[in-house]
């Protein structure tokens, strides 16, 4: 019986080869994300504080003093403040409907999430055809006899109105994503919890508030995170509906990069967007933290 001294080395080598396989498999991913994600982000920061070899805050100063900065900031924050609650109520309603036992709920669900295929550009174009002066909304209002002349929906003087219209377009488009996430969360909630609550006398809305929503917290958290980050990227829908009369932070970044050819200020805008996103993400994670004792795993 040969004792295993020399053979042990072969085993060791082979073990390393066998157990090394997963690392080889993830190597392309790690390399790719390192080069095309992590590195660019570091560079973005560098771009925003380094001009022509000197460290400086001038890109940020330029951004801050730019006329359109205040407008962009105001619009972006207002937009997010309005759209989030509206979308979540809408998405929750859709998800609850699709999760109920009505007939054709499969078809309804498919229709609800259809806008997943719409880019913000396509949505902007579709809704601009609705809001434009000789567009569909005015046509309907006129056909219904509510108006005799077209109302100017797209009016640079009425920024708030424009904001709401852009919100409408984005609500139409991106609620689908939140609906899907909430749906996935709802399907993870066993029916028994709601049934038990019902047996103990809770009506529908009470059940919703005390049973369903708390158990939906993880899904809501994910959806909220995603939505906030995406909201800071809003770009083409604004262009499509309001043109350059309205602006968002992302739009300004694009302007500075492609029109004014100043990547430094563009990077400053990008850095600001990132800062907002991360703060919002941290807040959301904190707010929706479920205490481990509360989870039944």
């Amino acid at each position, binding site marked *: 019986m040969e004792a*295993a001294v020399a*053979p042990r080395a072969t085993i060791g080598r082979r073990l390393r080869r066998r157990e090394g396989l997963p690392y080889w498999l993830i190597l392309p991913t790690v390399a790719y994300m390192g080069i095309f994600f992590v590195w660019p982000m570091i560079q973005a920061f560098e771009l925003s504080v380094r001009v022509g070899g000197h460290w400086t805050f001038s890109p940020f100063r330029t951004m801050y003093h730019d006329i359109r900065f205040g407008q962009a900031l105001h619009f972006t924050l207002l937009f997010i403040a309005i759209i989030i609650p509206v979308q979540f109520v809408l998405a929750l309603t859709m998800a609850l409907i699709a999760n109920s036992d009505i007939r054709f709920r499969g078809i309804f669900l498919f229709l609800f999430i259809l806008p997943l295929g719409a880019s913000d550009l396509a949505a902007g174009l579709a809704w601009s055809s609705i809001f434009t002066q000789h567009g569909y909304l005015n046509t309907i209002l006129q056909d219904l006899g509510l108006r005799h002349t077209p109302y100017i929906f797209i009016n640079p003087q009425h920024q708030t109105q424009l904001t709401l219209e852009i919100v409408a377009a984005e609500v139409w488009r991106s609620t689908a994503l939140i609906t899907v996430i909430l749906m996935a969360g709802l399907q993870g909630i066993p029916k028994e919890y709601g049934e038990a609550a019902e047996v103990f006398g809770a009506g529908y809305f009470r059940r919703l508030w005390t049973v369903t929503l708390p158990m939906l917290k993880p899904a809501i958290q994910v959806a909220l995170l995603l939505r906030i980050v995406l909201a800071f990227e809003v770009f083409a829908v604004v262009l499509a509906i309001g043109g350059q009369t309205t602006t968002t932070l992302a739009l300004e970044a694009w302007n500075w990069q492609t029109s004014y050819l100043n990547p430094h200020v563009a990077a400053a805008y990008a850095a600001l967007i990132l800062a907002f996103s991360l703060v919002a993400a941290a807040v959301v994670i904190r707010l929706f933290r479920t205490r481990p004792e509360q989870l039944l795993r």
Partner: protein
Amino acid sequence: MAEVRFQSVRKTFGKVTAVDDVDLDVADGEFVVLLGPSGCGKTTLLRCLAGLETVDSGRIHIGNRDATDLPPRRRRISMVFQSYAVFPHLRVRDNIAFGLKMQKEPSRVIKERVESVAALLGITDLLDRYPSQISGGQRQRVAVARAIAVRSDVLLMDEPLSNLDALLRLQMRAELKALLLELGATTIYVTHDQTEALSMGDRIAVMQGGRIVQLDTPLEVYDHPTEKFVGDFVGTPPMNFLAARVEQNGGGQVAQLSGGTLPLQGVGDLVGRDLFLGIRAEAIAVEAEPSDHAIRAAVVVNEPLGSHNLITVRAGTDLLKVSAGNHFFPEPGSDVWLRLVPDKIRWIDRDSGKAVAVTRDQAVAPA
């Protein structure tokens, strides 16, 4: 077909030692069963043999080759998995042919072999179906057919019958045994079901905690367990173990049990030790009337099994299961008298749990 040798095989998963320095020799054509409770290491040992796990130390030989560093496909083994692992996207025919195709056999040979193996397992009319279209029992046959079609050196089976319902399991057990006997295949079979192990194996390796505790023929494992664990695990019902102390009594000895005393002969080396007296249910005669050297016990419950009655009785503080005729229905709480067949008594050391070797002639002292 080939023989198999495990030499000091060791496999750990993190801090857990699943296989702890196991030695095992399996002869060419032999059917060895790895039996034990879940977590004892039997499946891990099988997977090490298959090459699906790499051993941490030790060698595995298949035939005259050292297979320890070879990947599964070079070991000339075939395996039947607990979940059958029949490929859903291939027809039954192509499932069975899979290994042969990998071996690049000519299609004429493949066709012939597939059909003959299918006939052996009675699934000829299922050949053109997909696994989703056949029942679990049929899928199991496909898995077996696929494994034996390749004519490997060693056949490995990982609890192949455990997912079948009871009746099917009984039927397949006999069929499988007959089939493997006819093929003369070297087989290593893993199960936690001791009835399966007893009925099928040439030898049984009883495992616990990563080690082989007893390696013997089924009868030996049943009749002469080397440890209390084996007596508990093998046999339906498990072996009865009564706490006992043997004392010298004149020319002979006497065993002090909780429920009475038992005169013995020739067990002098057991005197003064803390022991378990082990005896199987069928080795105890149950009578309604007292007799010499019989132990008195109270009936707790009677389970009629059709062919005989299994009666649970209490003797002192010991609870025993005894077999009685199927017309014997004593009242619960009533007394019965137990006469133990002397040469069926097995002694276990209470501290180590291991069997104590005694000379074979123990007899109840004559009156």
